[in-house]
C-alpha cells in the first residue's frame, strides 16, 4: 500500500499576535511548524504502516524552506518526501493548491490512500482535501477519527460529525482528512532523524507536474482577497473584582441584563 500524506508549513499561531498600535500581525519570533492536523495525518499513515506493509510519501507545496517540514516528517518515520516548489505557485487559492497537489499525486502514480489534515490552521478552509479528491476522482471522507484497512482494496473509517459518528466503507484509492482522535503524533527517533538529515528531497515545479503556468498560483485561482483588516476589538469588557458574594451578584445581574438563556 502506498500512502501519500499532504502537509503544510504554517506560522505557529501560538506566537501570532496583533500589534495593538499598528493593528498588524507581529512577525518577529513567529516560527514555522507543520500544521497540527497534518501531523495527525502523518501519524495515521505511520499507524497503518505499523500494521501493514505500507510505504509513505509526504508532500508539501511551498517555498524552498518548506523542506524543513518534510524533513521533520521523515524524522518521524515517513519513507520519502517530495517538495512542490515554484514561483508560479505563489498566490494559490484552494483551487490552485488542490490542482497542484493532485497533479503530484497523479505523477506518483500508484497511490492507494491520500491523507490530509482536516484543515490548515492559518487558512482554516478545510477545502483542499475534498477538492483534491475531486480532481483525482477519488471517493473521500472528512473528519476521520479512526482508520481500519479491510484488505488491499477497501478501508473502514469512523468520521466525527456535528451529530455523532458515522462508519463508512470506502474503496481504494481514496482520500481521507483526519482529526486529532486518529492519534497523537509520535516523536522523531534518532535513527530517522539521521536519515532525514541525509535524505535528498526532489523538488517538482510546474513543468515537472505537466501543468500549465496559467492553471496554478494566482493565475489559476478563482478567488481573490480584496481587503485584509484587524477584527474589531471587544469594547464591552467588564472586569469583576471584590468579595466572592459581590462578584456572584454582579455576574448574575450582568448576565440577566444581557438576556443570555439558561438563567
Amino acid at each position, binding site marked *: 500500500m502506498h500512502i501519500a500524506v499532504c502537509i503544510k508549513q504554517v506560522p505557529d499561531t501560538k506566537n501570532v499576535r496583533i500589534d495593538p498600535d499598528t493593528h498588524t500581525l507581529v512577525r518577529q519570533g513567529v516560527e514555522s511548524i507543520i500544521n497540527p492536523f497534518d501531523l495527525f495525518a502523518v501519524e495515521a499513515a505511520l499507524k497503518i504502516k505499523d500494521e501493514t506493509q505500507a510505504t509513505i510519501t509526504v508532500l508539501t507545496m511551498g517555498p524552498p524552506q518548506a523542506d524543513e517540514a518534510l524533513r521533520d516528517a521523515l524524522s518521524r518515520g515517513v519513507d520519502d518526501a517530495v517538495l512542490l516548489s515554484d514561483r508560479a505557485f505563489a*498566490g494559490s487559492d484552494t483551487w490552485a493548491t488542490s490542482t497542484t497537489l493532485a497533479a503530484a499525486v497523479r505523477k506518483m502514480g500508484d497511490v492507494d490512500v491520500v491523507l490530509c489534515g482536516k484543515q490548515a490552521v492559518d487558512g482554516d478552509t478545510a477545502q483542499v482535501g475534498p*477538492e483534491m479528491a475531486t480532481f483525482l476522482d477519488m471517493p*473521500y471522507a472528512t473528519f476521520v477519527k479512526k482508520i481500519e484497512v479491510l484488505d488491499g482494496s477497501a478501508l473502514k473509517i469512523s468520521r466525527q460529525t456535528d451529530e455523532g*459518528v458515522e462508519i463508512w466503507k470506502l474503496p481504494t484509492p481514496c482520500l481521507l482528512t483526519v482529526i486529532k482522535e486518529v492519534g497523537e503524533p509520535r516523536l522523531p527517533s534518532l535513527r530517522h532523524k539521521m536519515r532525514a538529515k541525509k535524505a535528498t528531497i526532489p523538488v517538482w515545479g510546474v513543468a515537472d507536474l505537466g501543468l500549465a503556468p496559467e492553471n496554478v498560483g494566482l493565475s489559476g485561482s*478563482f478567488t481573490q*482577497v480584496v481587503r485584509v483588516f484587524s477584527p474589531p476589538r471587544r469594547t464591552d469588557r467588564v472586569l469583576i473584582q471584590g468579595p466572592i458574594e459581590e462578584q456572584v451578584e454582579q455576574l448574575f445581574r450582568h448576565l440577566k441584563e444581557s438576556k443570555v438563556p439558561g438563567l
Partner: protein
Amino acid sequence: MKAIVDRQKCTVCGVCTDVCPFGAISLKETFIEISDECTLCGMCVDTCEFGALSLPEVGTGPAEDLASYKGVWVFAEWREGTIHQVSYELLSAGRKLADKRGVKLSAVLLGHRLDQSIQEELVSYGADVVYVVDHPELAHFRDEAYSKAVVELIRQKKPEILLAGATSMGRSFIPRVAALVKTGLTADCTELDISEEGLMLQTRPAFGGNIMATIVCPNRRPQMATVRPKVMRPEKMKDHQGRVERMALPEECFKSRVEVLQVIPEQDQTAKLTEADIIVSGGRGLRKSENFSIIEELAQLIKGAVGASRGAVEEGWIAPSHQVGQTGRTVAPTLYMAVGIAGAIQHVVGMQGSKVIVAVNKDPQAPIFDVATYGVVADLFEFMPAFIRKIKQERGESS
C-alpha cells in the same frame, strides 16, 4: 508572483514596509522593493494612500457568460427529518442579497421522505422557490451523491450565488461541488455583502481569527461560500409566498462509491458543542479529574454543553469530543463560560465568536480576560459553588 509597485505613484513613504505581515517590503533610497516573501495578502494595497500598490489579477480563464447566472441559492441542510438551524439563518442572509440584486431566493432541499412541512418552513424564511430532490440514495449523507445532485441542479438552473452552512456536512461536500463546477469557494464566512456589480463580498477570519479577509470570486459562477452557524440572524417572514419544484435527476447523480455502514448519533448530549447555545468549559485550573463535576453541575443547571481546553483533555479529565479550540471544535454559543482556562490563543480561536464570554480565573493577567465580556478574577473553587447556589436560589424564589 508578488504585489506590483507603481513607481510613478510611490512616494517612498515607507508605511507599507511596516504593515507587511511577512516583512517582504524593504525601503531602498529611492524606491521600495518587494521580495519573494510576498504572499499576495493585500495588506499593503489597503494601506497605501497613494494607490501605488496593487495585486496581479486572478486567473480569468475562458471568460464565462456571467450574466446568464441568476438568483441566490441556499443549501437547506436536512438530517434525519430536521433542517439545520443554519439553513434558516442563511435564507435570511440570502434574502438580503437577493433583494439587493433584484433576483429570486431559492432553497435546495435534498433527502428522502421529505416532509411537506419542511418545504413550507423554508418558504416562511424567505425562499421564493424550493427545489426538492427526494431519493432513497439521499437518505444518508454521502459527499459524492450530494455533490453530484447539487452540481446537476446548478447546471440546469444556473444560480449566481450558492450559500451553505459551514457545518460538518457543508464543509465536507461543498468543496466537491465547487471543484466540479469549476468555481471559487470561500469557507466559513462570518459576513456577506454584495457590490453593485453583483460581486459577493465574503468576509472570513484567517490566521486563527487574528485577521479578517474579504474575498471575491470575480470570474466564475456561482459564487460559493460556506457560512458559520449562529452568525446570521434568522428572520421569519410572515405571509411570504413561495413555490415548490420537485426535480427529477438522472440516476447517475445518486451513485456513490462510499457505503454508509452505521450512523451513531452522539449519545452524550453535553458533547453537542457546535449546536449548543450555552457552553461551560473547564481547563487545567480545575486541578483534578473529580473537580470537573463543578463544570458539569453548572452546565446541567443552565442546560448547557460541556467544553474543555486542550489541557483538560490531555490530562484525561474529559473526552476529546469536548475540546474547544484549534485542534478541537470551533464554537459560537450565546454564552461561553471559561472556567480555569488561561486562554492560550489555540483555545481563544475556537470560542472568540461567542456572543457573551465569561471568564473565571484567579490570575488577573490571564489572556482569557482579553476576550472576556465579563472577567471574574476569583478562585474558581470559591466562586463557582457560590454562583451555582445563587442560580438555584433565584429559581427557588421565582418559582
